[in-house]
């Protein structure tokens, strides 16, 4: 019987296993996860898990019972230590090892460590344990300083306000979420955070953190110092690839893969999710993404390619990201970076709903940011996938915008 070994109980790992079974895979499937927790979903860690609206059992991706029902051997608390691709053996830190016919690397990424030292009361948000510890600190009250205004930082800041805390967000960039958002939308997002009571200190770097839980001090490069009960550091993530160091696989800030999610030079090894750097045909280069949808879509692709070796499918995603901050449910499709959107529909301040559309310069849509407007988002995602012309997209969306405006004007 063939054996697919999945290293990592991340959403990518779990979805690969489920897609294999759904596709009729009759071999053995093993998921080996370093944590002792049954696999869980990560997006709620910076939101519902912190406010307490969700608990650990609400975010399980695969319970031991579900694993058994799907004939998936779920091994918890086993950390992969090394890989021998030639002999097809993965070994673990408890001294055990497993052979495989197909290997799926789904070890995810870890929060980038604070360069200002490990210190009690300084938190990251990456695991269930991280979220539980942070919730404990936040519910004790006191000021919260969030270092890093990316998606995770901005979500934690919003959650802090929801819990009634005094919140300051600091980032050396001039605006929040600049890796993903164009400057005009980032400015609107910052205004939204400030409206909600978050103090945004942008264009300011952190030079050091001192003190302990409940009495921390964050020193800034403009000479000021912020007092905080809790500090959260959200400054990015690094792929969990250290265990592959001696394997001979090509590593370059992620496991380097071809367009089929296969590790280069190893036809029987796949990588999915945050740890994978795959060749994206559309961009003509290797790309690593840290998004839920990316992991889920790569899992489906890897499972298909394991099941259909003679008919492999290339991974050609339309990037899709969401983030919930205050009363904004923000969804991004495609490439939404740059200085400004080509077209804006709706109004961020007046009706708390808008869409920012980006032309690709070749008569099509490059990307869209949509806030609180699901019907428009659906059209944008379809348009991106189907390559609809810019004129058709704009006309269609203006019609939706008019209909929405009319229905709201009705008494």
């Amino acid at each position: 019987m063939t054996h697919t070994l999945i290293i990592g109980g991340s959403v990518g790992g779990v979805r690969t296993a489920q897609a294999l079974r759904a596709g009729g895979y009759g071999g053995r499937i093993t998921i080996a996860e370093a944590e002792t927790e049954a696999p869980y979903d990560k997006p709620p860690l910076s939101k519902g898990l912190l406010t307490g609206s969700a608990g650990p059992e609400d975010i399980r991706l695969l319970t031991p019972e579900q694993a058994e029902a799907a004939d998936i051997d779920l091994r918890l608390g086993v950390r992969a230590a090394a890989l021998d691709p030639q002999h097809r053996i993965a070994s673990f830190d408890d001294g055990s090892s497993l052979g495989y016919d197909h290997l799926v690397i789904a070890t995810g990424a870890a929060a980038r460590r604070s360069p200002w030292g490990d210190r009690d009361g300084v938190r990251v948000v990456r695991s269930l344990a991280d979220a539980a510890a942070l919730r404990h600190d936040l519910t004790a009250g006191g000021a919260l300083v969030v270092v890093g205004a990316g998606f995770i930082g901005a979500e934690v800041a919003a959650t802090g306000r929801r819990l009634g805390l005094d919140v300051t967000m600091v980032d050396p960039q001039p605006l929040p979420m600049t890796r993903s958002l164009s400057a005009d939308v980032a400015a609107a997002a910052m205004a939204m955070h400030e409206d909600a009571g978050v103090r945004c200190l942008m264009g300011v770097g952190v030079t050091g953190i001192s003190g302990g839980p409940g009495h921390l001090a964050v020193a800034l490069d403009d000479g000021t110092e912020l007092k905080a009960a809790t500090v959260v550091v959200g400054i990015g993530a690094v792929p969990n690839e250290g265990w592959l160091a001696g394997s001979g696989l090509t590593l370059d800030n992620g496991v380097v893969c071809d367009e089929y999610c296969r590790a280069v030079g190893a036809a029987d090894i796949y990588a999915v999710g945050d740890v994978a750097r795959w060749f994206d045909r559309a961009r003509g280069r290797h790309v690593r993404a840290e998004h839920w949808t990316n992991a889920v879509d790569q899992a489906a692709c890897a499972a298909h390619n394991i099941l259909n070796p003679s008919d492999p499918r290339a991974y050609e995603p339309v990037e899709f990201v969401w983030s919930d901050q205050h009363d904004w449910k923000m969804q991004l499709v495609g490439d939404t970076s740059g200085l400004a959107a080509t077209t804006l529909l709706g109004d961020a301040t007046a009706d708390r709903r808008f869409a920012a559309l980006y032309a690709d310069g070749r008569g099509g849509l490059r990307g869209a940011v949509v806030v609180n407007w699901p019907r428009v988002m659906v059209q944008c995602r379809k348009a991106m996938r189907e390559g609809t012309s810019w004129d058709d997209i704009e006309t269609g969306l203006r019609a939706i915008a008019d209909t929405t405006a009319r229905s709201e004007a009705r008494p």
Partner: protein
Amino acid sequence: MAVIRADLGACQGYANCVVGADDYFDIDDDGIVVVLKAEVPDADRKRVEEAARSCPVSALKVTDA
């Protein structure tokens, strides 16, 4: 034959299902899923199941009728 069950309370309007199978799912102005056809013939089942599995909050299930 299978049937779609939607948990409207869980739905958060991500619309992954609509992108996966827009002949079975739509989304209303409040961002809640609308199941256009609850009954799924076997020929469509795999595609509809994939769309349902793409839900970030597991609000959709496809089960035997």
